[in-house]
């Protein structure tokens, strides 16, 4: 394809502008975080005496270790179980094509567009009735359910595209459903599963509404939900608030930079299928 030089240049320039605009708020956070904690910072400026100590203070005052621990616990509670349930259901709907499966699929798809805000009030009273309110379980149980429509949809989309000849061949060789599932279907499903795992991790880690409503103590929430705690703690110090927020977003960014290829692919596919 031929493109003129001006077009190419214009494209590059615009891309640079977009990159600068994307990074600006993050750089501005860093700039604020490095200014003296007891003063109102001013815009973008590299301070003559960068206060790296702000990060230490924010880390301690924010009980970041405990927060990370709580978040990891919630992720571990949500992601593996969701993957397992969705794989089983996706296999039943996509590969076994059970009778009545079409209705079940539509039933799940209907749940795709329900905004969490529409359910948050009853979820609160449900957690109260179950005695899970103010514990991590109040976040874990509903998230498994809320992610289920997407996860089932996702795994079914994978299994439905696996050629049926493969499983037929396995059955002719005398494999039962379980053996066929483990030896043939599961290895083939690994890319779909890992992409789903990435998405679920990100959505759980960044989940805000459920933690804020269902868990009163910010230290028992996800890191994202704990940001309100930071806002309360550092109400009077913008540098510390920004330092705290930067600490909070760093782990996800580090994981993203390590697995960026997988992340971008997962997010793009996730968008298309959702």
């Amino acid at each position, binding site marked *: 394809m031929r493109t003129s030089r001006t077009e190419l240049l214009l494209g590059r320039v615009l891309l640079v502008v977009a990159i600068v*605009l994307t990074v600006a708020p993050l750089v501005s956070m860093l700039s604020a975080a490095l200014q003296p904690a007891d003063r109102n910072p001013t815009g973008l400026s590299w301070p003559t005496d960068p206060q790296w100590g702000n990060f230490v203070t924010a880390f301690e005052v924010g009980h970041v270790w405990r927060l990370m621990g709580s978040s990891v616990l919630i992720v571990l509670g949500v992601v593996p179980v969701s993957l397992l349930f969705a794989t089983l259901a996706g296999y039943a709907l996509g590969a076994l094509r059970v009778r009545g499966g079409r209705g079940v699929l539509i039933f*799940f798809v209907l749940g795709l567009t329900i*905004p969490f*805000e529409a359910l948050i009030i009853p979820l609160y009273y449900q957690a109260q009735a179950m005695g899970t309110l103010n514990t991590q379980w109040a976040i874990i149980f509903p998230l498994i359910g809320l992610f289920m429509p997407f996860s089932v949809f996702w795994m079914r989309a994978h299994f439905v595209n696996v050629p049926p000849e493969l499983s037929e061949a396995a059955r002719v060789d005398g494999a039962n459903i379980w053996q066929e599932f483990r030896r043939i279907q599961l290895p083939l499903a690994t890319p779909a599963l890992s992409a789903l795992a990435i998405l679920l991790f990100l959505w759980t880690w960044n989940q805000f509404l459920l933690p804020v409503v269902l868990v009163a103590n910010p230290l028992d929430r996800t890191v994202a939900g704990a940001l309100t705690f930071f806002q309360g703690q550092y109400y009077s110090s913008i540098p510390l608030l920004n330092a705290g927020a930067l600490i909070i*977003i760093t782990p996800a960014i580090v994981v993203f930079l390590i697995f960026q290829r997988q992340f971008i692919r997962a997010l793009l596919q996730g968008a298309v299928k959702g």
Partner: protein
Amino acid sequence: MSHPVARRATARAAARRVTLIGWGLLVPALAAYLGFVVWPLALGVQYSFYDWNGVGVATWVGVENYLKVFADQALLGSITNAFILIAFFTIIPVGVGLVLATLIRSLRAGWFSNLSQTVLFLPQIIPLAAAGIAWAWMYAQTGTVNQVFGWLGLGFLARPWLADYGTALPAVGLIGSWVLTGLCTVLLLTGIGKIDTSLYEAIRIDGAGWWREFFTITLPGLRQEIAVLVTLTVIAALSSFDIIYTSTQGGPGRATMVPGLLIYRIGFTQSDVGQASAFGIVLMLLVLAVVLPIQRLSRAADR
């Protein structure tokens, strides 16, 4: 060799066994979905017909809570705000994404295109609540936005953007644009990559300019991606919560109040559980009413 009737009988038995196992595999997923989505939804519908403060006795009030959604200025105002946000969450990101994607589609794979993809995706990785905090500081009186205006000699425009009645809603909306534009651009870029390049060559030989090329090839070729992005971003706009919560709390006054935040306020601060539940159901139906036509349109266009 077995008798055909017997063989058919075993085949039927095997089919029945597969159905049974299949339904068994569906049980966990269905249980989670029924228990934590369908059941709360049913509870929400039930609450919405009562006047209840969450503790005391609930009184049946029929559809009164629903009528109030369409009569109360605060509730209606938040719905209006949500629709205004669509301009910033949907129109700007998809529009800018289209322009960017068309202009950089020729970018060859290399470190620069990789870097730009990574950077444009960053806002997708950080929590929306953190985006709200970052931008609250960008927009502050002494923040970066005013500083940049100062550099450009536009210092007279400086103001605390989120505290100003006139600018708060657009300013909050632009946070959404910031979050979503990267995703739109990258998704549209992959879409453009799938369009047959010979189409472009043909229309260039035909002597078509940039605009005709855009409207006759690029735009129709991206129909599916655009439908996906519009659906996704419209849902994000109508059910926004995190960004508003950490940047403006709905203020100043009710200038940036959105349904999600108002449901939270009515339900937990004012303890009007019935009203909040009714508003939640209305929000859900609103999202459906906007999203379903988009889906249908894109599907009709595919045929």
